[in-house]
Structure formats: structure tokens, C-alpha cells
């Protein structure tokens, strides 16, 4: 009993003095839609948090909430952070858009950053996203070079513009090597569900594809591809551990540089509203080391990556024909960002009907 009382007193002391210690200059907070252990999208955002922590050390205090459902719960999570002294809040999923803007109006001194959204209703709201499709184009080039069947399988999440953009970029990259290349698409209707993703991978392999790529976040498709002895691309993080003989490359979302930049701006007092869409050039999209492919393919992939990185080449450069046979981009014409951000049609060669 005595011990209990002692430990209670000790705990009370910790609680009352805990907040005084180590005064950080700035507090940054993250909200993730999935678990940080998904080894995909949320994991990569969390890597960004860790990079920022390593950079700023004691000057930066961090906090995060994982698996926050989109909907009524998101508003509470965001408001809780705003009230708990966060100076800048990164909400990392599309569904947080409206709650974030609502809370931002109530806390004008807190900076709000929303990944993948487009609404900036208050001066303290900024949006950011990455041009993942630049990496998809490189993947398409590799797939067409390495595939013997001439057909790749694409496990897609939801038919939102970002995902459609990725499928189209992959298709265009593949067609630059093999004009007859085909892509089969399976809509898993989830961002993270290892079971469904594995089933999708199996179904695609049974239909004769010999390369798998995914726009969902688990490592399951990579593991299925390994079992069945075909090649695959990783998603969001470097998944080479899950397919040492399978992974060709992976599009790695590197959010660290952006987070560090924005937190520095909060410290300096220079933070401003912005809409950042960074790609390979800005270091936000990075290709994992090229592996399990011929030297010739590797060389072509590296050249393609360099071309995009330097800004000399945009994956959406005409001539491009839509799936229905009508012309989208004339020769040499580059797609406008505004069209890409609302993209709802396929380019020619995609063997699927886009869910509308």
C-alpha cells in the first residue's frame, strides 16, 4: 500500500513538472490515415516526421495520430492538435480537407498543411502533393522492357485523379518502348487491405500478366509476386526487403525535405500559404535502386529518370490519344496541371473501363 501511494505521488510529480522541461521552439503534429506500420503511404509520412526530428533535434517537438478515420473523427483530431499547442499541423489524407479548413478558421495562429487536397479557405491553410506519376512513367518503361507477355497488372485503389494519372503515366511510359503494350487494372477499392490486394495480384497473374504494379499501400502484392516468380514494383516506400528477387524499383515518397522546409519557415516566421506539387526535381519523388533487371533496361530507366528530373521531359507530352480514340494532346503539347488534377479518362491501351 505504501508503495502504491509513493508511486502515485511520483506520478503526480511527473505530471505537474513534465511540461516544464525542455522548451521546444516549435511543435509540429501529423495526422495519418493508416497505421505507421503499413510500410506504404503513412509509413513514409512518418519517415518524414523522423527526418524532421533528426534535423531539428530539441528545437522541435512532434506528435502524431495514426489510423484517424476520414469523416467526423478527423475534425476532432485536428482540433485536438490545434488546442494542444501545435504550431503546424500536417493532415496527410484527402478526406481531411473540409474538417481541416473548418478548424483552420478557428485557429488563425496555427499553420495547417493538407496533403493531396485543393481547398485553401483561410490564409493559414496550405496544400502539398507529389508528382508520383513521374515515377510511374519510369516504371512503365521498365515494365515494357522486362515483360515477356507484353501485359502488366495494375492494382489500383480508388478512381480519383491521382490514381488515374498514375495508370496513364505507366501506360505512356510502356508505350514509349512497346506501342502494343497492355495494362490490366483491378480496383481494390481500398488503400490498405493486405487480403484484398493479394487476391487482386493473384487474379492478375492468373490472367497472364508477368509484372505487377500497385497503387495500394501494403506489401502483399510484392509477396504474392515473389511466390509466383514474377516481377513487381513497390509502392510509396522501398519494399526490397519484402521481395529481394522481385522488386524492380519502387516510387519512394520522400516527404522529409518538404516538412523540414515548412517547419523552418514557421521557426523563421516566413511561412506563407502555398500549393506545392513537387516531383523528382524537388526530391519529393525518389526511385528506389533499380534491381532484378537487365543492364540495358536499367540504363534506359536511369536515362528516363534523368530526363524527367532535369525538367526536360514531362510524361504527359503529346501525341496522346484517349482510350475512346479521340485526341487529347497534340504532338509536343504538354498537359495542363488543371486538367491532370481532375483527370477522369484513360489513355489508349489501358485494358479496363474506368469506373465512373
Amino acid at each position, binding site marked *: 500500500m505504501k508503495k502504491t501511494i509513493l*508511486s*502515485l505521488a511520483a*506520478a*503526480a510529480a*511527473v*505530471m505537474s513538472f513534465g511540461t516544464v522541461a525542455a522548451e521546444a521552439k516549435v511543435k509540429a*503534429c501529423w495526422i495519418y490515415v493508416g*497505421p*505507421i506500420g503499413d510500410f506504404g503511404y503513412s509509413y513514409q509520412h512518418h519517415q518524414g516526421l523522423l527526418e524532421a526530428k533528426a534535423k531539428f533535434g530539441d528545437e522541435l517537438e512532434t*506528435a*502524431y*495520430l*495514426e*489510423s484517424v*478515420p*476520414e*469523416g*467526423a*473523427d478527423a*475534425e*476532432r*483530431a485536428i*482540433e*485536438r*492538435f490545434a*488546442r*494542444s499547442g501545435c504550431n503546424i499541423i500536417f493532415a496527410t489524407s*484527402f*478526406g481531411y480537407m*473540409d474538417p481541416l479548413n473548418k478548424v483552420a478558421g478557428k485557429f488563425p495562429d496555427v499553420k495547417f498543411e493538407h496533403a493531396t487536397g*485543393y481547398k485553401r479557405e483561410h490564409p493559414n491553410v496550405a496544400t502539398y502533393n507529389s508528382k508520383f506519376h513521374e515515377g510511374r512513367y519510369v516504371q512503365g518503361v521498365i515494365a515494357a522492357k522486362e515483360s515477356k507477355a507484353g501485359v502488366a497488372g495494375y492494382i489500383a485503389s*480508388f*478512381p*480519383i*485523379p491521382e490514381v488515374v494519372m498514375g495508370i496513364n503515366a505507366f501506360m505512356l511510359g510502356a508505350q514509349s518502348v512497346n506501342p502494343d503494350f497492355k495494362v490490366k487494372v483491378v480496383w481494390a*477499392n481500398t488503400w490498405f487491405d493486405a487480403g484484398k490486394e493479394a487476391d487482386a495480384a493473384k487474379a492478375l497473374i492468373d490472367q497472364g500478366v508477368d509484372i505487377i504494379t500497385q497503387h495500394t499501400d501494403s506489401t502483399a502484392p510484392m509477396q504474392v509476386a515473389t511466390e509466383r516468380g514474377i516481377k513487381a514494383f513497390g509502392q510509396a516506400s522501398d519494399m526490397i526487403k519484402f521481395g529481394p528477387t522481385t522488386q524492380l524499383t519502387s516510387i519512394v515518397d520522400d516527404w522529409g525535405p518538404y516538412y523540414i522546409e515548412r517547419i523552418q519557415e514557421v521557426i523563421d516566421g516566413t511561412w506563407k500559404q502555398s500549393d506545392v506539387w513537387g516531383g523528382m526535381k524537388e526530391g519529393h519523388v525518389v526511385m528506389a535502386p533499380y534491381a532484378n533487371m537487365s543492364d540495358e533496361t536499367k540504363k534506359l530507366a536511369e536515362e528516363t529518370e534523368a530526363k524527367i528530373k532535369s525538367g526536360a521531359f514531362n510524361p504527359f507530352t503529346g501525341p496522346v490519344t484517349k482510350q475512346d480514340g479521340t485526341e487529347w494532346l497534340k504532338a509536343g503539347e504538354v498537359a495542363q496541371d488543371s486538367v491532370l*488534377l*481532375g*483527370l*477522369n479518362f484513360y489513355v489508349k491501351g489501358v485494358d479496363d473501363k474506368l*469506373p*465512373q
Partner: protein
Amino acid sequence: MRIELVKRPERSALFAALSPFIALGLTLIAGAIMFSLLGKNPVEALYYYFIDPLREVWSLHELAVKAAPLILIAVGLSICYLSNNWNIGAEGQFIVGAIVGSILPVMFPDFQSWIVLPLMLLMGIVGGAAYGAIPAYLKVRFNTNEILTSLMLVYVAQLFLDWMVRGPWRNPAGMNFPETRTFSAAATLPEIWSASGRANWGFVFAIVAAIAMWFMLSRTLKGFEVLVLGQSPRAGRFAGFSQSRMVFFAFLVSGGLAGLAGISEVSGAIGQLRPTISPGYGFAAIIVAFLGRLNPLGIIAAGLVLALSYLGGEAAQISIGVSDKVVRAFQGMLLFFVLACDTLILYRIRFVGSSAAKTVEGTQNA
């Protein structure tokens, strides 16, 4: 030595009162052990879990927002379960209520008048009740198992909502993202006391529904009918109560309340339809119903406790840095102990000596 459960001749009033406290004590002990093993200060962890969310007014509002759908749905489910109708599909009825209730603000956004909101709520109730009527009809007409049909209809509702917000009801100004237009002010369920937080009238509906159902169950003939048909269908038949009509009554009431919860959540807390509008309220409400011992007033308390465990879990994640998984494991412990301790109301524990145990083992092996 062996532990046996022996049925009591009648409900123990003592344990009915004590069991929640025993459960709380066991949860605190088990939770303290878990947090200590994780290297966290258990007192601090429990403080953030149970006390911190109650300290601020805005947080109390959030508690009401989270508890409202749970209570509304669970109250309806209690009628079902008391009358021996196993409606597992409240999640689907919630979604259909939300969809039907959203017809006006989505398809006729220019129709703005004071009448819009009452119509939406009414349509939400009708939608949920109609969806609940499907498993009821199947049960009465074809004697199908309502557990299966109501559960399967959840997936139908989820996919239908998904299709609606990606297709016909997609916001024309929404950059092709899967969501409807946002509701106008006339279609938004107002906040009760907007100066201090965002709790909306959905919470008031929940409390009113709970009191109304409590009154119905304990003071009216209909309530008596529910209990008799639930406990003894044969006795109910002798009393002239119709089993089939009770099936419809239970499903219509619980479907209607789930539908009201759906449209209240969408109109009050979210402001538009999205591919997912519920983090599983329809299923969590099943736990709430039993946590409240199928008593509508007990369900109010149970809904608040479960909501508190969500809010406290978030506070603990942020403040002491435990992961989301730990938070859920702790929530699971709480529910487990509460439901397990209720066993003591109907059973008592008997310790059987080791010699007796051996005999039993011996006979089993032989």
C-alpha cells in the same frame, strides 16, 4: 483446483450493482500492468484515458458528437435484441438513412427553407426503417436467418453509397474526388451551443429516443409484448401477440433510429456524403447495447463510456506516445471485463477441489 460457474436461482441484485465497478477495477489493474510493461507511467496513462477528455468544454462536445450515433443506434437495437430479433445490420440502415436523407441537399441544393431539415430527418428515418424492413420481411415470409441477411445488406449499402458518391452524386465542382457537394446552411443540423463546441442536435435526439424507448418498454403494453415475445414466443402467442408483427416492429424501430443517426451524422458532423461516413458505428452500437444491458437508460451511460474510450485513446496517443494498437487493446480490455463481469449477475463462481478435478480429467481421458 478448478473454477466452475454455477447458475444462480435468480438474478443477483448485489452483483448487478457491483459488476461495473469490479470491471472498472480489473481494467485499471490490467491496464496499469500493460502500460508499465510498455515503459509508460500507468497513472499518467490512465489519467489521459479517463480524466483528460472530461476537463475541457470542447472535449465534452466531442464526447457528445461521438456518443450520439452510438446511443441512437443501440437504443433501437435493444428493442430488437429484447424481442429476439438479431439485427446485425444497423451499419447498413445508418448508411441508407444518410443517403435517403441527403436526397434534398444533394439533388435540390437550391431548395432552401426551414422545412428542408425536418424533411431530411424524416426521410432519413424512413430510409433506415425501409432498409431494416428487408430482413424483417425475409424472416417473416421465408424464415431466413436475419443475422445473415441484415449483415449482408450492410455491404450492399456500403457499396451503393460508394457508387453514388463516385457516380451520380459526385460534386460537380469537386475535381472528380468521390464526395457530394457540401450541404447548405439550411440543410445542416444546428449545433446545440455553438459558442463552445460542435455538438449538434443529434445528441438531443439520442437522449430523447432513449427516454422514449425506456418509457415504452417499462410502462406500455407494447413494451410488455416486446419482452414476452423475446423471452417466450409460446407465451406470447397465448397472449394473442403476433410474432410476425413484432419482427417488423423491431426492425422498423431500430432501422428508423439508425437512419436518424445516419442523417444526423452526415448533416450535423460531416456536412456532405463521402465513401465512408461511419467508422463502424452500427457494429460498435451492438457492444453499446449489451454494455447498457439492453436498457435504454443504461445505453446512454454505455454510449458515453465507449465514446470516452475513443477520445481518451487519442489523448493518450498524443500525450504519452503510445501507439494506436495499444489504445485499441486497452479499449478491448475494458469491454471484455465489463461484459465478463456481468456473468456474475446470473452465475456464481465455485472453486472445486483438486481431487474432484482429477476425477473429471480422468473420465474425459478415458
